[in-house]
């Protein structure tokens, strides 16, 4: 739900002229961002927003089991988390699922984006609405739908790795590719259709036009969409919770079962790793989406 909005939020320069009535230290009537109380409010909210996660990350290095008072720096909980077989296996499962889900949902999403960008067809509004459904349907409803679906059709369980992850991967693709479609389509909105026509006029085939003209323009959107699909898959808990079985535990599901018992520094360490991975992926996605790279 994040990416479509980040894509829509355009950053414009307001160019606010200074007003005539100057009060306290050049603060114009519309310079709300310069008011001290406004700044303090926003600053306080940002602190509240980040403090829990930052403390979690900092205290993953804390040499104390009780996790409240700082007792010294250590990496031991990272080593413990690494050596925790269940946690490590869950992490590998998550990465594997995210990998396959990203590839397939990027391809499907990019195709749908091209379809919606290029063609006019009857029932298009309804089609777009249906495509947006996985984005808007409450996660828990989609989770139970997947549970019911795989149970009713008798999806084989107990297959060898990595095929035992197929049900979760399928579910992840189902909610990821509409997001990819939104991101890629936002990118394609800026494409000059005449370029495509020119290419075809000059005798290029459909495929050549796509490969040499459309795809180079589309690429930043595709990369951003892929990174989004990756983080969505890596982060998903609710839908995975309903599709996973005892031998197909993903990282968030494993952390959930651990958290239910107690808050341990080991979980903090593992969470920190996941947070760092997602933050890096997000930064990369933003870089590919940002207007400065738009003509790339």
């Amino acid at each position, binding site marked *: 739900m994040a990416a479509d909005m980040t894509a829509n939020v355009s950053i414009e320069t307001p160019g606010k002229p200074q007003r005539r009535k100057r009060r306290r230290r050049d603060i114009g009537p519309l310079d709300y961002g310069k008011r001290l109380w406004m700044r303090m409010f926003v600053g306080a909210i940002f602190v509240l927003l980040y403090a829990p996660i930052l*403390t979690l990350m900092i205290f993953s290095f804390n040499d104390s089991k009780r996790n409240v008072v700082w007792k010294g720096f250590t990496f031991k909980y990272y080593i413990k988390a690494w050596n925790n077989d269940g946690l490590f296996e869950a992490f590998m499962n998550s990465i594997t699922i995210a990998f396959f889900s990203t590839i397939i949902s990027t391809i499907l999403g990019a195709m749908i984006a091209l379809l919606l960008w290029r063609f006019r067809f009857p029932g298009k509004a309804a089609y777009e609405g249906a495509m947006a459904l996985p984005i808007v349907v409450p996660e828990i409803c989609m989770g139970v739908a997947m549970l019911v679906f795989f149970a009713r059709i008798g999806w084989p369980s107990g297959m060898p790795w990595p095929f035992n992850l197929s049900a979760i991967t399928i579910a992840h693709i189902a909610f990821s590719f509409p997001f990819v479609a939104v991101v890629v389509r936002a990118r394609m909105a800026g494409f000059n259709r005449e370029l495509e026509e020119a290419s075809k006029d000059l005798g290029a085939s459909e495929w050549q036009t796509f490969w040499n003209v459309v795809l180079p323009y589309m690429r930043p959107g595709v990369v951003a969409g892929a990174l989004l699909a990756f983080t969505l898959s890596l982060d998903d808990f609710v839908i995975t919770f309903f599709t996973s079985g005892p031998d197909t535990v993903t990282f968030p599901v494993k952390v959930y079962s651990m958290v239910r018992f107690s808050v341990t520094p080991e979980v903090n360490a593992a969470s920190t790793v996941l947070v760092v991975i997602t*933050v890096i992926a997000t930064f990369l996605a933003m870089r590919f989406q940002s207007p400065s790279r738009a003509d790339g």
Partner: protein
Amino acid sequence: MENWKNNKAVFWVLSVPGTAWLVVFFLIPLSLVWILSFGEKSGIIDIVITWTSENYVRASEQVYLEVIWKSVWVSVLATFFCLVIAYPIAFVISFAPSKWKPLLLLAVILPFWINLLIRTYALIAVFRTRGYVNFTLEWIWEKLNAILGFVGLAEYELIGARFEPLSMLYNNFAVIAGIVYVFMPFMVLPLYANIEKLDKSYLEASLDLGASQSRTFWSVVFPLTMPGIISGIILVFIPALGSFLIPDLLGGTNAQMIGNVIERQFKSANDWPFGSALSFLLMYVTFGALALRALLAGRKSGMEV
């Protein structure tokens, strides 16, 4: 835009894989749930579809009505707090110098890329009895007590004989705080997009004509940002109403929401038809909210969620 008939081959190649995936792995599963919601249990795992409405009737029993009602007011309160907090933030960001804007926006967006589970779990460490909030309060209490002792008031026990930690976890407060914490960015973004588009000369005109800042806000800015407010409310309210993880981890046994009841029907209680009916009630509310937004905002495209 090209008519699909001009290039049917390309049209089908592009549309079939995605559409098929959506139909087989999304629409059919949802339809299955819908059909199940009219079924009856005939054994431990056997369900017969009898097209009974009993599951929906059962959802209106006292116990479940209370849970539904509670989910609604918890979500309403959380949405309200989100709005109150997010509005000034969106406002400050859109009036900030342009070089600061992307950074501030990123700061708002970043937390919701971080795993929902981890963010919820981080709150446990903050709120629990031996968590950071109580730790800070205890520290303040000790200092205050020392000062009171210093001025000779210790024997009156003005602030209690000893520090009583607040119980902030496993109640409605924790659930509401969790929802606000987790879904706040959903509120900031549509508000920001709306305030950003606002023609600032309206504000100047209002101020020039002698209206106070608060009058300008309530008579000019607030009505003009109504679309953003409505979008934000719906974007927060829908996931809040369906939230399962937050009440599960932060709420106790009496702070359950509809999502927890649904989960129980599919896991421990093993009553799939009833769980399906509850899921679809949640879906209907979601669709209702979306339809309301479409009606109010008069938007045309479904992809611009």
